[in-house]
């Protein structure tokens, strides 16, 4: 597994396909913090949402690195398609974790906030970035070349899903009461936003963990489904 992750990272670097998503993320962060001071929790909530979108992009590009024949050979050498796809997802997660560190440290290092970041706020914001990155990876898996042969369908479907996920709160407000539950099917990319904006950041007990738990469950289920379906599509 470790060797395949290393192989994928090495291949990704050589391909230069990392450049568009990662540079876009850097630009987004730099532009977002153009002016200071900024509110801590709200700013981190927004940069986590950026990371959600960028993670889907990263995941699509990492999963499209190997040609179908190369993918078959790797699965044969590994003896398991499950290990192959898991290694690919972990590769993206590793890159997303590095971007999380950047998104977290950049405003602190360059004094972009109105106040200092307390451990409670820092911890919750960091976890929120990681969770949304994993959610993005899970969502992108379903729209990758592994699952969809048509690139138009894949990109179109992914963009629509991302837009719907981000607009979920607004959609929920305009839907009739009996249809509101449909929103729960969408990736919960903004479910923690409301919690974070209302949170004063004094202590870890002042925030509900259910939205975070829901992201974990949702991401876990779709990642598991991806691994099962990808294995069947061999």
């Amino acid at each position, binding site marked *: 597994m470790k*060797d395949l992750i290393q192989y994928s990272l*090495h291949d990704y670097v050589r391909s230069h396909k990392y450049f568009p998503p990662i540079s876009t993320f850097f630009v987004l962060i730099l532009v977002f913090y153009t002016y200071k001071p900024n509110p801590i929790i709200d700013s981190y909530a927004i940069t986590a949402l950026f990371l959600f979108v960028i993670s889907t992009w990263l995941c699509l590009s990492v999963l499209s690195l190997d040609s179908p*024949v190369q993918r*078959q050979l790797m699965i*044969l*050498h590994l003896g398991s398609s499950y290990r192959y796809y898991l290694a690919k997802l972990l590769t993206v997660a590793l890159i997303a974790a590095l971007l999380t560190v950047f998104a977290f440290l950049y405003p602190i290092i360059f004094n972009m906030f109105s106040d200092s970041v307390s451990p409670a706020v820092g911890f919750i914001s960091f976890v929120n970035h990681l969770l949304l990155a994993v959610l993005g990876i899970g969502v992108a898996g379903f729209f990758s070349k592994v699952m969809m042969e048509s690139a138009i369908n894949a990109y179109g479907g992914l963009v629509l899903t991302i837009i719907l996920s981000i607009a979920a709160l607004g959609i929920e407000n305009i839907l009739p009461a009996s249809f509101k539950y449909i929103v729960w099917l969408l990736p919960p990319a903004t479910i923690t936003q409301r919690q974070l904006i209302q949170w004063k950041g004094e202590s870890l007990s002042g925030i509900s963990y259910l939205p975070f738990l829901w992201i974990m469950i949702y991401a876990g289920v779709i990642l598991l489904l991806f691994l099962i379906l990808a294995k069947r599509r*061999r």
Partner: protein
Amino acid sequence: MKQLAELKNINKKYGKKKVLYDVSLNIKEKQVIAILGENGSGKSTFLRIAAGIERPDSGKILYAFKNMRTGYVPERFPKYLRFTPDEYLHYIGKINGIPEAILEQRISLLLRRFQLDKWSNRRINELSKGNIQKVGIIQAILQQPELLILDEPLSGLDISAQQELLSIISELKEQKTTVLLTYHEASIFEGIVDQTYYIRDGRLAEEMLTEKQGMKLIETKGFIDSDVEEWKEVLYSEKREDRLLLYVSSKNSNQILMRVLKSGGSIESVNSTDVNN
């Protein structure tokens, strides 16, 4: 001979097109099996299924033991790999769990045998078709597989690489590797193939030798091989002074000629003869 794998009633279709119909095959240890057939007959699909890369729609594949080491050379090895042969083969070896010291030795030996050592630091996507094919072959044999599957392995290979592949297959066979391969035209493989099957329109049939086939009388000199009677292609042999006369079916004559030459003998004459003579 022990059975290595068994493919039972394999069926496969792509969309509405059925590619394989109830194909069954017993694969025994230490054998070289050739699967021949025209383009689009289902050979490559059958090999991919035998390798475990593709799933059949129905049918069973039974392997003699779990986690069998299988090497596979695809018909078209990926040409856009961004690694050098050395880097790529190191990754493949590590993924297969080959210890670093052994891996280093094996890679350098195989690169030398296929004369790829001088290209080992160039990226695969910059290599010629033949050299890319050599990388494809090395990745399959690096782990010393129990089952080696080669789909048109000669494509793009020069004569010396073909000879090297032939000698590697013979060595692997000695080490109990079973080889399943396809090729198009009469090739150097004919001399080492134990069993030949034809796939026609997705159906498998074993090659049959008929008595009506013509025979050739090959007169050889300077060729001493005590095992010659064990060459299954030689139907009859006769020693006359310093010469050895070999009677073979016409269809096997080319491979016998090559085998004689490889053993250091010379060909004095080749004549057609009647089976009743």
